[in-house]
């Protein structure tokens, strides 16, 4: 059995991107082992992805199949641009990035930065969203082929692959940079504000798009598409069409632009990657030796929960309030609600018309276009969006939830306290949204309608999400990256979020129906009825879901404890 004492045989074998891809596939596979529920969720996710991808494919292939070259440029530039934008912003605002291969795990291995970045990049390409995007974008290849023959199709294919690489690089670079910023205590609040601005870009963008569509000025639109085609957002997608139009030099230039953009993004990523790798080790203790004021109990209760009694309910509320602000993941959610909550209803209710007319009479016309039912509908969306944050509220706690299990906190009390603490932050925001919208619409009298619908939807959303959070909880990885998720959790997360949003919206339907049917009478009834509806739904939800929680506290704890 003895092994001869030998020096390591020659230089170590080279590590290539292929190793990372195989590692990712292996981790994915091991994650599914013996986890029937995860496999089902994964398959459902793949099917949903396929469905969306096929619709996208048809949309992008349509101009080619119909032989309409005029629309081809528009769909390629704007459709492709939306893809890039989606990859850039959606991970930040909604979905997070798949951190199956956490960069920090590679910190001790003798790998060059270049090997690591290409490896992680290659591994990031192995995912369902990437495949779905590829399927969608290949519609462009069909279009280019139909309009310009094989050469155009080939260039379009190169462009599509380049565009896909660009999308993934953008998603990685941006989330990594933001995660680094959010980790550092000093610039954390600045980063949060920046994130808000990024999310806010959704608003103006949609307004511009709506305006353009309403105006239906094809010449101007085509001009815009040409400009977009020369930016990294549109360059990879429109290269094939340039060949079809006989401008091979433009196609070459556009592919170059794409390659440069990918290079720049990867460079940016590799910068922040380094700090992500050492960040976990070297942040150092942020000691705060300032003498504490008052006793332990007084320190725990923040100002916002100062009114609470010093009992079990009060202390749960106080701890949750502290957590909504101190936990980066939770704070990120709060900021998202604030930003999206303001912009979506503004867009829906007055965005399009205001920019379409371009005249000073914008508000009057907007108000004329809007109706109590439409306003209620957009408010329902905001309320549901706010409450869906709680869909995995126990996942935020992770294994720390053990403390509550050990203390035997009754389920109803637990859920009621969590709803209360979250509402202390969210309800003022929602009220502000309602007021802003009513004023912007030029109908201050509609305040009752907006606030009523909002509170009703929020309350019923809380009720639904109480159930979802108890029955569909999943573990979040214990990293300092607020955007990270566990493998496979992406599908679960989207699935449960979707499920809870649909059911919450369904629960709020009576309010919209009432707004549509009751007319003027509703303006006076909306606020009290909406408030009562929301409060009643939330209480009922915590009452019923609390019983479920009482029966499955240990199971819930196991579900939210990350596997090691």
């Amino acid at each position: 059995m003895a092994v001869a004492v030998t020096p390591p045989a020659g230089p170590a074998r080279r590590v290539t991107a292929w190793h990372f891809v195989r590692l990712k596939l292996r981790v994915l596979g091991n994650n599914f082992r013996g986890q029937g529920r995860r496999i089902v969720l994964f398959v459902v996710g793949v099917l949903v992805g396929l469905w969306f991808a096929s619709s996208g494919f048809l949309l992008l292939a349509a101009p080619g199949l119909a032989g309409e070259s005029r629309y081809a440029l528009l769909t390629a530039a704007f459709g492709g641009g939306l893809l890039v934008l989606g990859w850039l912003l959606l991970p930040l605002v909604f979905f997070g990035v798949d951190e199956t291969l956490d960069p920090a795990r590679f910190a001790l291995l003798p790998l060059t930065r270049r090997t690591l970045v290409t490896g992680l990049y290659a591994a990031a390409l192995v995912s369902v969203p990437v495949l779905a995007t590829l399927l969608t974008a290949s519609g462009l290849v069909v279009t280019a082929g139909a309009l310009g023959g094989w050469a155009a199709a080939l260039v379009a294919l190169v462009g599509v692959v380049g565009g896909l690489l660009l999308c993934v690089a953008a998603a990685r670079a941006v989330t990594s940079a933001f995660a680094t910023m959010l980790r550092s205590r000093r610039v954390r609040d600045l980063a949060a504000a920046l994130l808000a601005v990024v999310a806010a870009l959704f608003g103006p963008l949609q307004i511009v798009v709506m305006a353009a569509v309403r105006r239906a000025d094809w010449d101007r639109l085509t001009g815009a598409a040409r400009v977009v085609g020369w930016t990294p957002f549109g360059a990879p997608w429109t290269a094939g069409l340039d060949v079809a139009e006989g401008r091979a030099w433009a196609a070459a230039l556009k592919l170059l632009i794409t390659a440069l953009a990918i290079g720049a993004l990867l460079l940016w990523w590799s910068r922040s990657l380094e700090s992500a790798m050492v960040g976990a080790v070297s942040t150092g203790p942020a000691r705060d030796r300032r003498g504490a004021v008052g006793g332990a109990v007084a320190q725990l209760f923040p100002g916002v929960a100062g009114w609470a009694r010093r009992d079990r309910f009060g202390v749960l509320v106080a701890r949750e309030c502290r957590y909504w602000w101190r936990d980066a993941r939770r704070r990120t959610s709060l900021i998202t609600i604030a930003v999206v909550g303001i912009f979506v209803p503004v867009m829906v209710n007055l965005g399009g018309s205001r920019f379409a007319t371009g005249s000073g009479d914008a508000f009057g016309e907007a108000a004329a276009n809007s109706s109590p039912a439409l306003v209620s509908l957009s408010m329902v969306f905001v309320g549901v969006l706010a409450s869906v944050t709680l869909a995995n509220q126990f996942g935020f706690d992770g294994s720390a939830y053990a403390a509550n299990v050990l203390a035997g906190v009754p389920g109803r009390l637990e859920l009621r306290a969590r709803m209360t603490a979250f509402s202390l932050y969210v309800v003022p925001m929602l009220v502000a949204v309602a007021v802003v919208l009513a004023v912007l619409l030029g109908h201050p009298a509609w305040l009752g309608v907006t606030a009523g619908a909002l509170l009703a939807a929020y309350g019923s959303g809380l009720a639904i999400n109480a159930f979802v959070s108890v029955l569909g909880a999943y573990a979040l990885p214990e990293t300092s990256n607020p955007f990270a998720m566990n493998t496979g959790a992406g599908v679960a997360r989207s699935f449960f979020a979707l499920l809870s949003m649909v059911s919450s919206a369904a629960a709020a339907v009576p309010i919209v129906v009432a707004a549509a049917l009751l007319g003027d009478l509703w303006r006076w009834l909306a606020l009290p009825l909406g408030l009562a509806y929301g409060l009643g739904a939330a209480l009922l939800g915590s009452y019923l879901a609390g019983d479920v929680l009482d029966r499955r506290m240990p199971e819930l704890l196991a579900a939210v404890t990350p596997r090691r």
Partner: protein
Amino acid sequence: MTDQHPALVLRGLAKRFDSKVAVAGVDLDVPAGSFYGLLGPNGAGKTTTLSMAVGLLRPDAGQARVLGYDVWADPVHAKGLLGVMPDGVRLFDRLSGAELLAYHGLLRGMDPAVVDQRAAELLDVLALTDAGRTLVVDYSAGMKKKIGLACALLHGPRLLVLDEPFEAVDPVSAALIRDILHRYVRGGGTVVFSSHVMEMVERLCSHVAILAEGRIKRVGTLDQVRGDRSLEDVFVQVVGGRTATGEELSWLSR
């Protein structure tokens, strides 16, 4: 009724994860007032057993009684008498030490004034007052163990269950924890803790149980279990590990 009962009784506790049997029927009687060490190699099922005993993990079969109250049938009474420091479980670590103690105290329905007074004392004794408003997440490993112990002690439990209380703790803190536990037992409390530090167990415990492969292999008072040998010898023999390497790994020496 609590005084005539043993502090902790486990009967036939069993747990299986997927295809792996983690705990295969554990029976244990912990007399009130004892200092009980649960020994076992890594993966023996110590954490799983203790988690089932305190109500964190639902057993597939078996019973756990704390001072006569069934942990799974009557959790309210049982949990009220228990103080637990789990291992591998996070604390609500975005709170400072004092805030965390206040949380645990009020969560167990204690009077705020009592919580304030005991929290100050505990922080002082455990030398955590210096940390000020530092969040627990930024504590060192040893400080985290100490604040975890403080959380378990705060409500004055009758039975203390500690999972690996001496892991990653420096000698100074370990001595401090040892003193506190000794005082607690002298005052009539019962301590059950898991460990694989033989020296600590030999020094502290009145009773010992050795757990391996999900079963109790040896159980009794410290003297009964170790006889005239050292506890480490008995442990290695029971667990069946090898004590020396042979010819393999020769490339480690040059």
